[in-house]
């Protein structure tokens, strides 16, 4: 995938682009000069003629140059589910989708609840990954929801956040102690809030579930758990990130918590922003997600909240599932859809529909995750790591699932018309993807 040779200290410049710095929120023509994997200069003065003769120059032909995307929720398969995904395939998909940093979910086998597993992931990522992979460690031992994981040691080993993946902590006492303890280490707690007692449902509760004869999950299942968590955050002061909200009830709760000054952030998935329950159609299991796709009204509320900044982050919620777990009756099929490679293209639907600005979209996929995680990426700024992407927001294409890099092809955008694709992805100044 490394299509361009790189010489140590050789300057590299992306010129003739539209610079999109999500922090500044505006776009300007210009280029970016990169030396030793770091942005050394940027702006209208970075043009081909002004560069030293030995510099490598890439003409972007007027395309957007933006920080590489940071995906706070993706399943990378290793260790234990290599038949679904590997770090090599997940990061290939990420690179092709413009994602330069992945937060790897801890619900692997064994789960990421030991410093040795964190270390394993970091070494595997170094050896086989095209983009950065940052491990998320478990909140509780074995993801069992009972005993606290070694938050201090795991953080020291390199875990950037803590989560029990798709499982919610049922026990409020356990959650309170974890939040209090995590605060001592300034650790970020990411929680997927869905009351497990409502887990018999398989799609959003409502008319459509009733028509299909499927058991519904009410919006309240998510909000009840989030409301509880917000009270515990107020009690403990821990940094808390609602990993994936899907309802307006949750948005109201997050909005109020932010107004009250609590250290709370939240994410939604690209699927929940661009699809709704009706897309399930004739029992399409690729659209069986957790939390479930909601009504169109709820989708619009999510988009609105993203525009307002109540939603901080957009995740791919990349969850590769093979044919054997998806080609089943809807109730028996596994949850999840892949998304690393399509999150930007899908997000651009919102921009083209005039529902959100390009800067806000890119910020929710780069700058805001970087801020929450304390990473230097996500910015077009001198001194920032040269994790950059070049994309044409308008180029149309039809998604062919067979061309996707993920080991599994369970995309909800199967054969969908997309507009906008990534042409070049760079991690620390190295080109890891270039469109043919």
């Amino acid at each position: 995938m490394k299509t361009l040779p790189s010489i140590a200290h050789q300057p590299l410049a992306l010129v003739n682009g539209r610079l999109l710095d999500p922090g500044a929120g505006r776009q300007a023509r210009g280029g970016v000069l990169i030396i030793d994997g770091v942005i050394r200069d940027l702006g209208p003065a970075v043009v081909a003629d002004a560069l030293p003769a030995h510099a490598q120059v890439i003409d972007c032909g007027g395309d957007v140059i933006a920080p590489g995307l940071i995906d706070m929720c993706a399943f990378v398969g290793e260790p234990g589910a290599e038949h679904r995904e590997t770090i090599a395939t997940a990061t290939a998909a990420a690179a092709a989708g413009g994602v330069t940093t992945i937060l790897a979910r801890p619900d692997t086998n064994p789960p990421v609840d030991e410093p040795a597993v964190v270390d394993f992931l970091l070494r595997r990522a170094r050896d086989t990954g095209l983009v950065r992979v940052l491990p998320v460690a478990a909140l509780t031992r074995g993801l069992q929801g009972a005993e606290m994981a070694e938050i201090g040691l795991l953080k020291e080993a390199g875990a950037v956040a803590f989560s029990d993946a798709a499982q919610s902590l049922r026990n409020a006492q356990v959650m309170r102690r974890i939040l209090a303890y995590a605060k001592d280490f300034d650790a970020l707690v990411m929680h997927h809030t869905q009351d497990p007692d409502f887990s018999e449902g398989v799609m959003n509760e409502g008319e459509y579930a009733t028509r299909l004869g499927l058991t519904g999950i009410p919006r309240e299942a998510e909000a009840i758990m989030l409301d509880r968590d917000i009270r515990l955050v107020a009690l403990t002061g821990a940094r808390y990130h609602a990993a994936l909200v899907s309802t307006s009830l949750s948005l109201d709760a997050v909005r109020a918590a932010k107004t009250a000054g609590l250290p709370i952030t939240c994410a939604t998935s690209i699927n929940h922003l661009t699809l709704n329950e009706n897309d399930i159609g004739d029992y399409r299991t690729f659209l069986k997600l957790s939390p479930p796709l909601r009504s169109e009204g709820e989708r619009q509320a999510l988009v609105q909240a993203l525009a307002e900044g109540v939603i901080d982050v957009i995740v791919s919620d990349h969850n590769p599932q093979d044919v054997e777990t998806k080609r089943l009756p809807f109730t028996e099929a596994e949850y999840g859809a892949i998304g690393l490679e399509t999150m930007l293209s899908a997000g651009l639907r919102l921009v083209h529909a005039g529902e959100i600005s390009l800067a806000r979209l890119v910020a929710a996929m780069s700058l805001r995750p970087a801020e929450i995680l304390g990473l230097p990426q996500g910015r077009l700024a001198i001194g920032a790591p040269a994790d950059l992407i070049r994309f044409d927001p308008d180029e149309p294409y039809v998604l062919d699932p067979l061309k996707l890099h993920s080991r599994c092809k369970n995309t909800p955008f199967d054969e969908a018309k997309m507009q906008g694709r990534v042409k070049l992805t760079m991690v620390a100044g190295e080109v890891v993807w270039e469109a043919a």
Partner: protein
Amino acid sequence: MSELRPIQKFRHRHLLGIEGLSAADILTLLDRAEEAIEVSRQIEKKRATLRGRTLINLFFEASTRTQSSFELAGKRLGADVMNMSVSTSSVKKGETLIDTAMTLNAMRPDIIVVRHAQAGAVHLLAKKVDCAVVNAGDGAHEHPTQALLDALTIRRNKGRIEGLTVAICGDILHSRVARSNILLLSTLGARVRVVGPSTLMPVGIERMGAECFLDMKSGLEDADIVMMLRLQRERMSGAFVPSSREYFRTFGLDAEKLRYAKKDALVMHPGPMNRGVEIDSSIADGPQSLIREQVEMGVAVRMAVLAALAEHLPND
């Protein structure tokens, strides 16, 4: 008459649900079923409509009544009928629904009748086979031949369906019979009500075309047809209703509650009944009951459906 003749051509390759059928489609099948009743009442019940055809009854969920009804329907039309109860065979060996479908498909059947515990399973199977597929009940989704036989029974006793008030009572939440009946009866112009406790009432059911009632008195008022649904045993001990005796007291159909309906109201039940839970024996066996007639209509409707689908089968 050696074959069931088409009255009007049925336009569909499969019968997966009432959803998607027009009033004309439904009336075509009902009219055809009227003929099939005559066939079934003769001493010589065998016809040649499906001669040489193979019908497979593929039941992932045990059912004596629906399976035997389809079996008789197939045999009376001259088909070779094979019954497969999959719950006891390949599923235990880990074979998936798709594998089973592909295996059966390779045996070149003409029609497969499928019952499965999961909603949508029959649709999934229909996408993988070359023959016609009839949904004999998929989870809480649809049971189209039950709705057709109910409509036929109503039409024969009331002379019409349009304008009638039909109260469907009991466990609406888990009932495929309720869903198919709501769709069919409202398509033919009946006023459909659903009656039951809030815990057994699916969200948004009124948007499918039914009016929702939470007590038998208001729900049965002026009803022409009272259709009772079965309440599964595991659902009457605290999860959805506290006990079977409390359920019978509030929603069980007895003489007292039946008096809320019209004097000439008729009582139906898709079977099998829980006597003393959702329906009192005196009502089930009483003069207003159509329950036994429903069983006879079941065979006729299934003959009509099989014959209609057979018209789309290749003939070479």
